[in-house]
């Protein structure tokens, strides 16, 4: 759970993108599952103090390697970007519950921006001879799609569609449009396959796609993000709100009870 992982690689993906690929060798890979995350120590001294949560994007159990992608967002990730190969990083993980791995039917992956990262590990893990995988991915613009790994989808020969807000690639507009048209098309084809949906991205996007999925009666799993301190369920800093069986509101810890939740349970914008 706590290990010093060796930094095998830590490079910017596309110059200027601010998105880095970090490859770690150590104990995490042995037990990691898609949808889980690691909690990384980014500084040598007490500032910045807290660890940073980053999703596991790739798992190579045999070589004992996990791959992460991160975007430089603030001080912590900026320091992380300066870590050199062969150095070690203090890592807690794998943490969290992870995605449900479907065994049949269709798996619809919905990604908003860099929300694609945790989905990479799911694409790898799912048995595509039994499960049809479809990816819908919305982003700001083409640059982000390329930097965040569109080529990976091509390499995997995945069925995917993209949308960009500025129209620089794929369908112009939001992922919700992409989703609506896909579902419309699909219902016309009146396929009988059971479909399960997994979504990851910013909260507004998750809320919107969850509403669409629920309306259509599709089960949806969402991967949430929240500021974290402990990462292991001890501080209750990272909660989301769910409506429990009896209808009462409950708090769940994103780090321990999540980060993956059933979309129908999540109460978005909960106050109080």
């Amino acid at each position: 759970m706590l290990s010093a992982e060796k930094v095998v690689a830590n490079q910017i993906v596309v110059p200027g993108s601010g998105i880095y690929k970090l490859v770690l060798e150590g104990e995490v890979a042995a037990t990691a599952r898609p949808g889980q995350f690691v909690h990384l120590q980014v500084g040598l001294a007490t500032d910045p103090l807290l660890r940073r949560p980053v999703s596991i994007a790739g798992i190579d159990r045999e070589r004992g390697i996990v791959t992460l992608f991160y975007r430089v967002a603030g001080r912590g990730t900026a320091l992380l970007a300066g870590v050199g190969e062969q150095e070690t990083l203090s890592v807690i993980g794998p943490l969290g519950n992870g995605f449900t791995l479907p065994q049949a039917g269709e798996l619809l992956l919905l990604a908003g921006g860099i929300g694609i990262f945790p989905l990479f590990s799911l694409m790898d893990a799912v048995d595509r001879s039994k499960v049809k995988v479809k990816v819908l991915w919305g982003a700001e613009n083409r640059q982000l799609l390329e930097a965040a790994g569109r080529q990976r989808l091509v390499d995997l020969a995945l069925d995917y569609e993209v949308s960009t807000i500025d129209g620089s690639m794929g369908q112009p507009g939001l992922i919700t449009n992409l989703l609506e048209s896909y579902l419309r098309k699909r219902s016309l084809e009146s396929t009988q396959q059971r479909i399960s949906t997994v979504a990851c991205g910013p909260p507004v996007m998750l809320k919107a796609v969850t509403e669409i999925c629920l309306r259509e009666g599709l089960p949806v799993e969402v991967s949430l993000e929240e500021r974290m301190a402990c990462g292991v369920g001890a501080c209750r800093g990272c909660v989301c709100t769910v409506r429990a069986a009896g209808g009462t509101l409950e708090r769940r810890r994103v780090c321990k009870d999540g980060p993956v939740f059933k979309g129908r349970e999540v109460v978005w914008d909960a106050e109080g």
Partner: protein
Amino acid sequence: MQKVDLSTQLAGLKLKNPVLTSSGTYGFGEEYGAFYDPGFLGGITVKGITPKARLGNPVPRLAETPSGMLNAVGLENPGLEVFLNAYLPRLEALKTAVIVNISGFSLDDYALMAEAMPEESCIAALEVNISCPNIKDGGMAFGTDPRSAEEVLRVTRKHTKLPLIAKLSPNVTDITALAKAVANGGADIISLINTLLGMRIDITSQKPILANTMGGLSGPAVLPVALRMVYQVYAAVKLPIIGMGGISSWQDAVEFMLAGASAVSVGTANFVNPLAPLEIIEGLEEYCRQHGYAAVREIVGLAHR
């Protein structure tokens, strides 16, 4: 090599070693079980319990600060009943002293909870939290006025024979006045410090980062303030002290014990280094060995010479 006696006794609270974990940072004792057996610890302190369950504050509840963090969890907890029925049995299994942190909004709340805590169980002491900055009424208000603080302790004292730890707020002009008040009220032990009231603002949204606007500052940043207060209280009151506030290393722990703490408690440091409490136990032992102390309690208060 000579064995160092790490055992400590604070009034009626006997500990196998002087290292505890702090309320709100250690869940209900199970979360760090994946890293080590909590039975190695002197004891653990559970999250603040209130008579009724609380959802706590909305998110964001956390913000980072230089060498510190703010939290505004707002005393989210399962409430007294669920604690007794669901959590306490699991705590029994941990084989470590359990300190239950109780927080109230009225004197009756404290009385009720003190009364309800079994005197024969793994519960080794009650920590009376009169210092939580993250709830609107009660909480810190009790802890910043000596008369109310004394009253809370007096009432709680009447309803339990368990050792009572009064947890003080650092957000006061004179910490020794509060320490004297809780001593008068019947506290057996004093723990300090709770968090310092602080805030951060998001310069993009131009709003406070925390949904609750303000929150409690903890972590290494507060260490010098906490240490000063332990030093002052040790000189002012005869009660044993549990020192906390920013302790992340055995060196920090030694500073607190030299200042007058009979035991130390590790909070925020758990988040950064889950093994911190164990490293501190080992470091204290080694420090004593190297300096020729047969028992760790010999170093308590030495900085006052």
